[in-house]
């Protein structure tokens, strides 16, 4: 009987020890409900050595702490594997967990600013609504002092993220958004404090704290989004965490994967991931390469063939010679290149940051000029002059400008989300409205990536096929199992022949399911069709054919996009005839075939150099680098994590229609964004001179600023009422 073993990892390699306890952190797959939690924790607590066993459902991790010996780690792990859960040792690897700390400290800042701001408002509101008759100067003084006692420590503490970032920028002789923010916060606080001492009126602790509070929330959401992206890269690399079995001097040693060296001979048993890029030394097997190429058909490998780390050995044990160390292998390279292109991308898209470069110096100069005019030329007290200067800083606070883009994106995002479309990068919509070329991948993108039965097979024959198919992980076997879900025959003497198929005895008859090496040698006329043969003793072999269908609305969507004058290209790693057939059906003139990962990426790079703005739609890991190379990119939700992460937009469902919908949405939202920008700029043109002249107090400035933001928000809401998208 063939069974896919859980990887024979030596979990004890990953055990850490503090003063008296050992502990082990494991990634657990298959925790769905409280019963799983209970089952795992309870079974672990039945060992009396266990001090702590705790499942974290959110991160799918299990922590075990125990006394005794290191070896127990393997005992616990195999116990949980027997319960039916898939385990991987959790290792920080090359990724540090600094961001978790960053998130937590941001929450602390948010909590403190929220608490103090709330309490401050309680006092401020009563101060605002009072007049000199019902609140005496003593009470007022008391309130102001109370405010400053709450506000000053809170501002100093929760403003730290902005001060730090501003200082960092200033040290490198450049400015960022945080410089004016920090300056406004510090000046407002200082002034409010001196006013409090002098029993003055200009006290605006609340505005300063409010600013901090809202900005912190924005920052927190930003970090969370980035972390999610990193998390999935980690999941991919976790394929390469664990131990490998190395053969040395005729003995088997278990070695951590990241310590594998060139020339090591590694034994890869059934169901194990290939731990490193290498060459097969002995044995034949089928390798599931879907994680790299998206290709559903396993590759048959023999001596001398190359294997790639992360792929899955499916049919029989093989021995490979390692050719590349873990850090140099293909998967690591892909993850690295993704991270690089990610940072390159954000560099030139952050519109707000671009504006900030221009905006900050202008605002500061305006503030200084205002101060000088009032102090030097008009002979005002420095407090009053400073007050006007701060008003200028506050009223130009780029909220309306800053909101113009994101608010439209948030709303568009929401309405797209309801349709099962996820915008992962804010800039995606904006960019999508400028595209002039769309590049499609074929398998899994234009087609569904799920083979379906196309010829007629009697139910009884299907039952024979399915009875064998359940024992194989071959995609066509899985397709058969998917189609047939009734009772199965009992199979005896089951054997899997690598690269050939399965055979077994059913009802005293020899039955085989696999390649067409049984006396029938018809050429396959249509390469889009996948075939598997079922031969039952004493009867003719039967052909079972599958086809990977084109998504039903693909033709219509391609036509619709073309109508906007956009060029469409089909780019595939598949063979010529397969690609050509699909291109013909969709009426796509330009198509490319047999493109490898790197060729695809270079192809997109070339398009970019030629000045094209390209939307790339793809789903395989081999598309990931191209997706991040492209100007803007999309992938279906059936794609693997790392590809979804490389993409700017992820869409769900069996249809391609979302692509066209997002495209139209992007055009309309870019129209709204332009309107918002015009309004925000107009507001600044009117408000700044008024503030410089001194017609505005900081409070009114704060209100005006909010109003400008509200107008922008209301305008943006029009996106929800647009019907024809």
């Amino acid at each position, binding site marked *: 009987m063939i069974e896919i073993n859980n990887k024979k990892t030596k979990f004890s390699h990953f055990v850490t020890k503090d003063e008296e306890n050992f502990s082990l952190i494991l990634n657990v797959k298959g925790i769905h409900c409280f019963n799983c939690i209970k089952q795992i924790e309870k079974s672990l607590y039945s060992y009396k050595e266990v001090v702590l066993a705790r499942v974290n459902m959110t991160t799918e991790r299990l922590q075990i702490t125990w006394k005794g010996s290191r070896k127990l780690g393997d005992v616990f792990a195999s116990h949980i594997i027997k319960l039916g859960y898939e385990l991987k040792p959790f290792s920080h690897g090359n990724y540090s967990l600094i961001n978790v700390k960053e998130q*937590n400290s941001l929450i602390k800042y948010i909590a403190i600013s929220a608490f103090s701001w709330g309490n401050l408002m309680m*006092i401020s509101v009563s101060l605002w609504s009072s007049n000199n008759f019902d609140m005496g100067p003593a009470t007022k003084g008391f309130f102001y002092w109370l405010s400053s006692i709450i506000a000053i420590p809170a501002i100093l503490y929760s403003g730290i993220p902005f001060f730090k970032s501003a200082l960092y920028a200033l040290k490198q002789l450049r400015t960022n958004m945080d410089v004016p923010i920090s300056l406004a916060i510090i000046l407002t606080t200082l002034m409010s404090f001196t006013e409090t001492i002098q029993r003055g009126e200009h006290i605006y602790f609340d505005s300063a704290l409010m600013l901090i509070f809202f900005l912190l929330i924005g920052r927190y959401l930003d970090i969370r989004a980035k972390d999610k992206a990193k998390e999935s890269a980690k999941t991919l690399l976790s394929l390469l965490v664990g131990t490998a079995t190395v053969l040395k001097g005729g003995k088997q040693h278990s070695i951590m994967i990241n310590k594998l060296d060139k020339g090591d001979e590694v034994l890869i048993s059934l169901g194990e991931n290939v731990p490193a890029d290498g060459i097969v030394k002995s044995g034949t097997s089928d390798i599931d390469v879907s994680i790299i190429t998206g290709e559903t058909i396993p590759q048959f490998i023999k001596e001398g063939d190359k294997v790639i780390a992360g792929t899955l050995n499916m049919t029989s044990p093989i021995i490979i010679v390692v050719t590349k160390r873990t850090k140099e292998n293909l998967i690591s390279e892909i993850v690295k290149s993704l991270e690089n292109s990610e940072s390159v991308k954000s560099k030139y898209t952050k519109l707000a940051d671009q504006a900030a470069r221009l905006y900050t110096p202008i605002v500061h100069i305006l503030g200084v000029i205002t101060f000088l005019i009032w102090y030097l030329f008009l002979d005002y007290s420095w407090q009053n002059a400073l007050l006007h200067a701060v008003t200028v800083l506050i009223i130009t606070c780029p909220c309306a400008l800053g909101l113009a883009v994101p608010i439209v994106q948030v709303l568009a995002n929401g309405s797209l989300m309801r349709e099962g479309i996820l915008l992962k990068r804010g800039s995606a919509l904006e960019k999508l409205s400028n595209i002039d070329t769309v590049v499609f991948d074929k398998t899994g993108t234009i087609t569904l990536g799920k083979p379906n039965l196309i010829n007629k097979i009697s139910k009884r024959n299907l039952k024979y096929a399915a009875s064998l198919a359940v024992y194989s992980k071959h995609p066509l076997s899985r397709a058969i199992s998917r189609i047939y879900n009734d009772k199965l025959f009992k199979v005896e003497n089951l054997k899997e022949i690598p690269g050939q198929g399965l055979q077994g005895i059913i009802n005293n008859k020899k039955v085989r399911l696999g390649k067409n090496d049984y006396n029938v040698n018809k050429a396959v006329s249509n390469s889009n069709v996948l075939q598997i043969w079922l031969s039952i003793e004493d009867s003719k072999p039967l052909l079972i054919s599958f086809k990977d269908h084109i998504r039903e609305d693909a033709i219509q969507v391609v036509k619709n996009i073309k109508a906007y004058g956009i060029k469409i290209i089909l780019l595939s790693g598949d063979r010529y005839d397969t690609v050509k057939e699909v291109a013909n059906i969709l009426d796509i003139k330009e198509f490319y075939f047999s493109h490898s990962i790197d060729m695809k990426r270079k192809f997109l790079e070339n398009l970019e150099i030629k000045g094209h703005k390209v939307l790339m739609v793809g789903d395989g890991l081999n598309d990931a680098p191209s997706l991040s190379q492209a100007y803007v990119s999309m992938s279906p939700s059936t794609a693997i994590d790392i590809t979804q992460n490389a993409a700017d937009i992820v869409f769900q469902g069996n249809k391609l229609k979302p692509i066209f919908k997002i495209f139209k949405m992007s055009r309309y939202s870019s129209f709204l964004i332009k309107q918002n920008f015009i309004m925000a700029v107009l507001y600044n043109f009117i408000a700044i001179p008024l503030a410089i002249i001194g017609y505005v107090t900081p409070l009114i400035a704060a209100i005006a600023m909010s109003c400008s933001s509200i107008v922008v928000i209301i305008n943006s809401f029009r996106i929800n009422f647009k019907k024809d998208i």
Partner: protein
Amino acid sequence: MSILLYILPLALFLGFIALLSFLWAIKNNQYDDLKGAAERILIDEDDR
């Protein structure tokens, strides 16, 4: 109005306690596994 002298600091003090307990909760990993916590209440007996 002199009641304000007591009541405002008192209100602040109570709020401050809430803030501290929130910070404690973060530090004590109470927010690490919200999904798990939601499921755990369904576990019947707790014999540890």
